[in-house]
C-alpha cells in the first residue's frame, strides 16, 4: 500500500490507444478478466441463442420424452412438457439479460438526472428529491418490487418498470453524493470564474468524475436485477409463461424436484454463473477505477 492507495496505479502501463490501454490495464488483474470473460460468453450465448439452441424453447414439445434425464439428445434433460431444458436455459439468458439491461439503463438514467439536479442545485428540489429517495429506500427492494408487480400486473414490461422504480433512488443517492464532493473543489470555482455555464460545469466537469462509481454500481445492480427478476419469475410474478426466463424454469422444476432435479439445477447454475461473472467484473472495475476503496 503506497501513499496513492494501491499497487494498481504503480502497475499501470501507458498505451498510445486510449481504449486499448484501458482494456490492457484492466485485464492485467485476474478477477476482472475472468468476470469479463464470463459476461462476454453469456452475452454471446444470449445474442446467438437461435443458432446455439437445438430446439425451440416453447413450441418443441415431445410427449414421448416427458421429464427425461440428461442424455445425448437432450443434454440438460427435458421438462414436464418434454421441452429441452438446454434450449430453454439458452433462450432464458436472452430474456433475463434483456430485462436486467433495460432496468439498469432506465434506473441509471433517471438516477443520474435526479442526483445531478439534487446535488448541484440543492435547496428545495434537493430536499424534495432526497425525502423521496429516503422513503423509497425504506422498502426492502424485493418486497417493494412484488407490491408494485401486484398493482401493475405481470408482464415483461412491468418487471422492468417496477425494478427501475426500486433501483432509481440508489443511483440518485450515489450521484448526488459524488456531485456534492466534487462541486466544492477549487477547479470548479475557477471554471465558474472563467464564465462556464451551469449546464457545462455539470455535464462537462462534474459528471465525468462520477462515471467510475456509476460504472461500478451499474455492474453490481445488474447482478441484483438478474437475481430479482429470477425471484419474481420464480414466485410466478415475473415473465409470463410459457416464455423461458431462468426464474420461470426454476418455478416449473420445483414440483419435480425429487424425480427430475435437472430442471432445477441447470437454470440455477446459469443464474449463479452470470451473477458470479458480474460480481467479479464489478470487483475488478472497483480495483481498477477506484484504488482507494481497497
Amino acid at each position, binding site marked *: *500500500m503506497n501513499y496513492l492507495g494501491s499497487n494498481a496505479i504503480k502497475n499501470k502501463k501507458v498505451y498510445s490507444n486510449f481504449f486499448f490501454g484501458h482494456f490492457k490495464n484492466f485485464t492485467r488483474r485476474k478477477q476482472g478478466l475472468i468476470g469479463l470473460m464470463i459476461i462476454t460468453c453469456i452475452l454471446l450465448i444470449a445474442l446467438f441463442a437461435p443458432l446455439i439452441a437445438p430446439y425451440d424453447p416453447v413450441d418443441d414439445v415431445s410427449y414421448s420424452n416427458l421429464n427425461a434425464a440428461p442424455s445425448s439428445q437432450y443434454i440438460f434433460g427435458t421438462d414436464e412438457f418434454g421441452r429441452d431444458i438446454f434450449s430453454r436455459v439458452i433462450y432464458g439468458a436472452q430474456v433475463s439479460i434483456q430485462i436486467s439491461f433495460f432496468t439498469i439503463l432506465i434506473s441509471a438514467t433517471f438516477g443520474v438526472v435526479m442526483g445531478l439536479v439534487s446535488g448541484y442545485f440543492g435547496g428545495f428540489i434537493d430536499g424534495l428529491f432526497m*425525502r*423521496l429517495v*429516503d*422513503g*423509497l429506500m*425504506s*422498502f*426492502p*427492494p*424485493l*418486497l*417493494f418490487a*412484488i*407490491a*408494485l*408487480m*401486484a*398493482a*401493475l*400486473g405481470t408482464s415483461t414490461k412491468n418487471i422492468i418498470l417496477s425494478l427501475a422504480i426500486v433501483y432509481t433512488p440508489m443511483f440518485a443517492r450515489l450521484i448526488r453524493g459524488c456531485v456534492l464532493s466534487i462541486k466544492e473543489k477549487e477547479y470548479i470555482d475557477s471554471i465558474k470564474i472563467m464564465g462556464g455555464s451551469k449546464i457545462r460545469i455539470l455535464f462537462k466537469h462534474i459528471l465525468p468524475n462520477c462515471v467510475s462509481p456509476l460504472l461500478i454500481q451499474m455492474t453490481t445492480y445488474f*447482478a441484483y436485477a438478474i*437475481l430479482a427478476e*429470477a*425471484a419474481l419469475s*420464480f*414466485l*410466478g*410474478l415475473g415473465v409470463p409463461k410459457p416464455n423461458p426466463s431462468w426464474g420461470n424454469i*426454476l418455478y416449473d*422444476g*420445483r414440483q419435480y*424436484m*425429487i424425480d427430475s*432435479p435437472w430442471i*432445477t*439445477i441447470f437454470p*440455477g447454475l446459469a*443464474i*449463479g454463473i452470470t*451473477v*458470479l461473472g458480474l*460480481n*467479479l467484473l464489478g470487483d475488478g472495475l472497483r480495483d481498477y477505477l477506484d484504488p482507494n*476503496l*481497497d
Partner: protein
Amino acid sequence: MTGYLIKRILALIPVLLTVSVVVFMIIHFIPGDPAAAMLGSQATEEQLTQMREQMGLNKPLMVQFSIWILNLVQGDLGSSLVSDQSVLSLIANRLPVTLNLIIFAMSFSIIIAIPLGVAAAVKHNTSVDYVSMFIALIGISIPNFWAALLLIMVFALNLGMFPATGYIPLTKSIVLNLKHLALPAFSLGFIQAGIITRMTRSTMLDVLRQDYIRAVKAKGAATFTVVFWHALKNAMVPIITIIGINFGLLLGGTVVVESIFSINGIGQLMIQSVLNRDYPVIQGIILVIAAIYVFITLFVDILYTYFDPKIKFRKG
C-alpha cells in the same frame, strides 16, 4: 447524546410520511379501475360500486389520503378483502414467525462471517484469505431460492436430516424449531454471510494498518487481544451498517424462502395476498416492514455511538 437522539427521531418523520404516501399510492398504480382489479372480470356493476364505496375510491384523491392517514395514525390498516380480518392482526399473527427466521438467519451469518472476514484480513494475501474470499463470492452469487431447492433436495429428500417444510414455534419446542428453521435460515443467511465477510475483511485491513495498532503491538499485547479487542471494535461501525442494511434484504428474501419451505410468515401472507389481489393486506405488509426497517436503521445509528463515540460529538 439526547440532542442527537431527538434529532435522529425527528428526521424519521418525513421518511415515514413519504413511506405512507408511496404505500397509499400503490393501489392507484393499478392500470384502469382498482375496484375491477380487486374483484376480477366477473364482477357486476353493483359489486363494483360497493367496492368503490368500501375502499373510498369514489372520493377525491386528497380526501382518500387524509382518511387513510387518519386511520393509519390510529393503527387501523383496514381489513382483508378476502377474510375480512383486520390487516394489523393478520400481520401481527405472522410477524413472530418471520422475525424468528430472520434473526436465526442473521445470527448464523454473523457467526460465520465475522471470524471468516477477520481471518482473511489477518492472513492477508495468503491461502486463508483467498479461500475465504472465494467462499464469500460464491455466497453473494447464488440465488437464495436455488440454494433452498438444492438444500431440500440433499438434506431433506435424500438424507432426511431436516424436515423439508413447516414450522414449529419456539415456545413449543426449541429443538424442533431449530431443526425446521435450519435449512430456511441457511438459504436466507448465506448471502448476508458473503456480504458481511467481505465488509469485515476490507474494514479490518484498513484498521490493522493504522498506527495505534502498531503501538498496541509494540506494547506487547497478544495477537488475539490486538485483533479482537483493539481492531475489531473500531472496524465494527461499517460492519454494523452493512448488517443493518442487510436486515432489509432479509425481509425481502424471506418472501421467497418462506414460500419454498411453506413457513406461514409475512412472506407467505404477502404472496397469498398478491395472488388474491388483496390490496389492503399488501399495503399493510409493506408499510409495517418499511417501518420496521426504518427503526432498525435508527437503532444502528444509535449503536454507532457506542462503537465510535466521535460520532455523537460530530453530529449531535
